């Protein structure tokens, strides 16, 4: 019997606002415990929430980027439960009237595209952090994170494999980062994912019982957890057992999921409308303002690069990994009029240096205009492609322009046939043995002669000119 997995993913993304969703405390990660707190986010008696406008704006951005229908009337609700890092004993979230519903995004993997539905996006506040002593009696609570704004993005159960799940996550991640509303850092917890997964016999319609998976802190772990859980559920069903609806935690060390059943009963959250907040009406004007400020999204950009610059889709993929890199490439492409060459240089030398020096793309010391200039110098024959690599390194180190470097280091290509001719003669005279071997039939020594000419000209001889002259002279010998 073949089974098919049904996967739905819930992502919580922390929004990059300066201050928290309901109070003015900083959202900065890594502050000393409990130092970014105030009576409001501490849930002290008598405090009240006031909604941060930018949270709504960022949420609208995501809703637009994922083609959701934005609800004109938004309201908040209380989700009631007890936990030491939930100060008020309830989380302010959205229930009946969330920000947005019924959207979709396109994912790509293995060369195919698929559309994954988005059920809803809503705004809510994050809880604090509880640190449980492994071999002790205490739990320690840091409330810095309480009140950091989140959007929860719930997908339709449209994914049919862990690979699709991972592709969806990458996509969502990329969009959030492109929009500059989330830094997408899974390790720091600014991008978190829970999964709902069930299996059913292939070809059937009804969904099986699903399990909720938590505690997957990287894309890789999400995929591993899904792989494991799908296997587990299939094994379950094949041995005649039923899958239980429960929450399971992924154990990254042991690479298994553990049941939380018995330690956590089904929550009755007793949702009701939040009386301390009034509705948020999202007008067409507001939406249009936000729309105007939206950047081109990654998939659109990739498609446009392929179309407009005629570069392969692989290149487009690499170049659009970040907005900054894509912008960089486009300047180079436009300045040079040589998009494929530009792409090679950006994907090659530029990215290699970025990786090696571990810097951000925004901090590349070679401006895209300067790189463009250098490429033009190759195209117009001023330098050879090989020399250009040296020029590039010098540009990176010194920040000087390519023409200045070429001038200062005398790297201009030697095109002068007379000069090359003279060097070729020198080389042939200097290596009579190799000349004799060549004439006897060892044709690959041609490369040796070329190498010697290059050596004598510090690599500056125009390779094409060298080739032509050498060929002519050797045939004359």
């Amino acid at each position, binding site marked *: 019997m073949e089974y098919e997995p049904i996967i739905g993913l819930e992502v919580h993304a922390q929004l990059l606002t300066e201050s928290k969703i309901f109070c003015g405390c900083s959202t900065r990660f890594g502050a000393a415990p409990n130092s970014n707190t105030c009576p409001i986010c501490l849930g002290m008696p008598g405090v009240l929430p006031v909604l941060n406008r930018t949270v709504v704006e960022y949420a609208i951005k995501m809703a637009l980027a994922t083609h959701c229908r934005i609800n004109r009337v938004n309201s908040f609700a209380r989700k009631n439960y007890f936990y*030491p890092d939930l100060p008020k004993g309830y989380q302010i979230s959205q229930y009946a009237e969330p920000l947005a519903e019924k959207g979709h995004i396109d994912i790509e993997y293995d060369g195919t595209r698929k559309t994954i539905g988005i059920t809803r996006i809503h705004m809510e506040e994050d809880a604090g952090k509880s640190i449980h002593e492994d071999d002790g009696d205490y739990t320690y609570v840091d409330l810095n994170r309480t009140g950091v704004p989140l959007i929860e993005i719930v997908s339709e159960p449209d994914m049919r494999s862990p690979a699709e799940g991972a592709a969806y996550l990458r996509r969502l991640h990329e969009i959030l980062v492109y929009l500059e509303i989330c830094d997408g850092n899974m390790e720091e917890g600014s991008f978190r994912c829970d999964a709902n997964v069930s299996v059913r016999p292939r070809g059937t319609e009804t969904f099986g019982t699903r399990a909720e998976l938590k505690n997957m802190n990287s894309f890789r772990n999400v995929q591993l957890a899904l792989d494991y859980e799908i296997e587990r559920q299939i094994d379950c069903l094949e041995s005649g057992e039923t899958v239980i609806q429960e929450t399971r935690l992924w154990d990254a060390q042991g690479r298994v999921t553990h049941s939380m059943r018995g330690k956590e009963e089904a929550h009755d959250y007793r949702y009701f409308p939040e009386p301390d907040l009034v509705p948020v009406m999202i007008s067409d004007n507001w939406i249009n303002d936000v729309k105007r400020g939206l950047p081109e999204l990654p998939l659109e950009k990739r498609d446009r690069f392929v179309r407009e610059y005629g570069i392969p889709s692989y290149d487009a993929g690499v170049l659009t990994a970040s907005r900054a890199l894509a912008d960089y490439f486009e300047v180079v492409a436009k300045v040079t009029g040589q998009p494929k060459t530009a792409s090679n240089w950006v994907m090659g030398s530029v990215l290699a240096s970025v990786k090696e020096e571990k810097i951000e793309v925004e901090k590349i010391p070679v401006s895209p205009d300067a790189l463009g200039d250098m490429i033009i110098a190759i195209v117009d024959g001023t330098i050879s492609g090989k020399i250009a690599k040296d020029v590039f390194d010098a540009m990176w180190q010194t920040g000087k322009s390519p023409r200045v470097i070429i001038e200062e280091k005398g790297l201009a290509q030697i095109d002068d046939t007379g000069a090359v001719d003279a060097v070729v003669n020198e080389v042939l005279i200097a290596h009579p043995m190799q000349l004799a071997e060549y004439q006897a039939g060892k044709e690959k020594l041609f490369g040796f002669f070329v190498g010697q000419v290059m050596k004598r000209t510090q690599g500056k001889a125009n390779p094409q000119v060298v080739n032509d002259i050498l060929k002519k002279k050797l045939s004359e010998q």
Partner: protein
Amino acid sequence: MKITKKEVEYVAHLARLDCSEEEKDIFTSQLNDILGYMDILNTVETAGVEPMNHALSLENILREDEIRESLGAERALANAPDSDGEYFRVTRVID
């Protein structure tokens, strides 16, 4: 009987309250009286009536995304029944 003793126990648990057996009995009886009284609402026709969640018709009360001074950890922890000076401390959560 609107609410059974078992439901009273469940509700108490949801609300993180302990009740002695005697209290459970008293609460069950009192809650039944009170909830029974609420039946009067079933006689009111409310089809098509929007629930009233707020006494006002305010909307879009928003604040600018600006940082304001925090209390600082010392003041935040000042009323804590137990802390180590940096964190609030409670009996370990069993997960």
